């Protein structure tokens, strides 16, 4: 295997920035690609070189496998890092990379095949003694009803090609099956270019706990502990933390050893996540996320290790950069995903142009961000803008630091999930760690306190007065210039 010298990052946003930085840390030249709307994005500006993609639509840009492989070859890249989403778990893309002589930073195509076929993954897990949820393989519309009654209601429809919670639908009764199936197929096609879906038994109030693994592809597999990702909305994770609160030592041992067995059973390589549902003192394997995950920084925070440079080392053919005995968790870490969504309006994507950003910083705070003034929050891509990760000796201190950081975080121009996160941190069920996957359904800003009404009234009065008396103030006045300049500057070749 070659030493990596140049690496093409086939992604955008905060994860592309994360990989650029890992490249710098390893002395590898990072190469970016960008859709037209991303011409001024940080990952483009931070890379050593950047290559334009023809259109904003994913099929023309970050899902455009043949063009990405061709670009990597032209650019003299030794390897491609797919980030998460887009082509990260696409076995054909991984195979195309290897055929072109470009290392795919991720699992081998054969592992991706297994992970992508949820039934095969479940069979593999069961074969090494790991409990699984009842479920089906990919289903045809005609067999759906029969298969569903075998699995039992309520059940989930999930995308075979999926991940990231997209295309998941809960069906409580047989009458809703056909409609949900149609929706799920459409979403799966749009998000992953693959309309196949499967069914899985639904557990009412479980916790979502996942285990981070790292494997060298030759049977050496270690785990880096677990994460709790039970704060979800429409199967999209909103908050993750490590370690999982309230997990018994026996449960932790059971989960981590199960994860290592599954990874070994499917011949896994690189960083990956084995997802489980935990219900009381039982757990069930659900699936393998065969990629670096959005929430990997919470694991980095508690272990002090670097998952992305580890991926690059493994891709270069090195052995695992650390052994299981070197992995120890210390303290507590929480991640809040700051997305361009309107939490007061059903979490619908908030489309617009960001005209100002102020990111938090300081002790115990890490921000992985792709944000910039002038950025268009586009309907084409995942609305994730940035991740705030807080780490501290105790969970309470990590919550306090997160609250401080979220209050420092200012994004102008679009709605974000920050108000939801501030709400979540103050809920008793979050504070005591007793929440489960239904937690986010309780989101409701509730009645405003007299103090809040007073502050809102003062803010509105001061804002109005200020606008009337100083109509040409810097912020709103210079924003359009800023944007124009940013766009002008961003137009790389």
């Amino acid at each position, binding site marked *: 295997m070659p030493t990596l010298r140049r690496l093409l990052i086939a992604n955008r946003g905060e994860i592309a920035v994360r990989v650029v930085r890992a490249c710098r840390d390893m002395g590898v030249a990072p190469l970016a690609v960008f859709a037209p709307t991303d011409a001024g994005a940080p990952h483009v500006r931070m890379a050593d070189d950047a290559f334009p993609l023809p259109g904003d639509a994913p099929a023309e840009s970050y899902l455009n496998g043949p063009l990405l492989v061709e670009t990597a070859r032209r650019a003299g890249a030794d390897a491609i890092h797919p980030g998460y989403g887009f082509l990260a778990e696409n076995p054909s893309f991984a195979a195309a990379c290897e055929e072109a002589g470009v290392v795919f930073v991720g699992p081998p195509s054969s592992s991706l095949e297994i992970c992508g076929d949820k039934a095969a993954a479940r069979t593999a897990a069961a074969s090494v003694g790991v409990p699984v949820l009842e479920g089906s393989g990919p289903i045809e519309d005609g067999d759906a009803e029969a298969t569903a009654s075998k699995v039992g209601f309520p059940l989930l429809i999930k995308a075979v090609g999926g991940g990231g919670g997209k295309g998941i639908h809960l069906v409580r009764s047989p009458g809703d099956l056909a409609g949900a199936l149609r929706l799920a197929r459409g979403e799966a096609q749009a998000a992953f270019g693959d309309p196949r879906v499967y069914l899985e038994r639904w557990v009412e109030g479980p916790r979502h706990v996942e285990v981070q693994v790292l494997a060298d592809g030759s049977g050496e597999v270690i785990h880096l502990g677990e994460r709790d990702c039970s704060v979800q909305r429409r199967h999209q994770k909103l908050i993750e933390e490590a370690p999982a609160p309230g997990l018994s030592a026996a449960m932790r041992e059971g989960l981590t050893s199960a994860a290592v067995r599954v990874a070994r059973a499917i011949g896994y390589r690189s960083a990956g996540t084995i997802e489980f549902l935990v219900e009381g003192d039982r757990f069930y394997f659900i699936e393998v996320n065969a990629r670096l995950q959005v929430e990997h920084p919470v694991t980095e925070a508690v272990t002090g290790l670097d998952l992305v440079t580890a991926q690059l080392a493994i891709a270069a053919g090195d052995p695992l950069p650390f052994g299981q005995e070197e992995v120890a968790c210390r303290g507590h870490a929480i991640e809040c995903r700051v997305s361009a969504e309107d939490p007061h309006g059903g979490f619908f994507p908030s489309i617009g142009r960001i005209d100002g950003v*102020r990111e938090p910083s300081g002790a115990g705070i890490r921000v992985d961000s792709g944000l910039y003034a002038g950025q268009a929050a586009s309907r084409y891509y995942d609305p994730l803008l940035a991740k705030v990760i807080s780490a501290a000796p105790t969970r309470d201190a990590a919550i306090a630091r997160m609250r401080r950081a979220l*209050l420092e975080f200012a994004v102008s121009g679009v709605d974000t999930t920050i108000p939801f996160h501030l709400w979540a941190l103050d809920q008793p069920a979050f504070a005591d760690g007793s929440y489960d996957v239904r937690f986010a359904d309780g989101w409701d800003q509730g009645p*405003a306190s007299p103090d809040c009404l007073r502050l809102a009234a*003062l803010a509105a*009065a*001061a804002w109005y007065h200020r*606008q009337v008396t*100083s109509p040409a103030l810097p912020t709103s006045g210079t924003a359009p210039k800023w944007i124009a300049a940013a766009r002008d500057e961003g137009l790389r070749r």
Partner: protein
Amino acid sequence: MRIEISIGGRRQVVAVEGAGADALITPSGTDAEGLITPGKAEGVRLEPLAGAECWRLVAGGRAVPVRVRPHAGELLVTVGSIRLPVRVRRALPVPSRRGADSNSTHRIEVRAPMPGLVSAAPLTVGRQVGAGCVAAVVEAMKMQMEVFVPAPGIVEEVRVRSGQEVAGGQVLVVLRAQEIS
């Protein structure tokens, strides 16, 4: 400047003075449903934090980040996890002193409170109007502001029409006052 604020069913008129980031806000004491404890003036600061929407409000010995976004004729104000739709408008127009001095005490000039686009100018010459009648609606920063007639009179001139840009302080309508004091 007197400003009327409404949040949900609560409504309060406040007097605001100051310049730049600083404002002294004095709530009127007449409203039992008040949003701000009436009777005492409160100094606040509103400092820009990011872009056009993010501010830091310093009030009562505390600093809190707020987001203020004009939307559909209201302000959406976010404080912590709470977002509130707030209606804000100028409570009463100020009769022009300049007009009063340079012409005659019988004339009343109704002026635009801020630069903007006239979105309605419903008066016609000769019409008799009472105090509080809408002289024009001026739109700026996605907010619509009604400009009121300050005292009863008869419309002598309507100097603007709907769709026209006006400067702050520009005369919109001229009335002949019905009662001379």
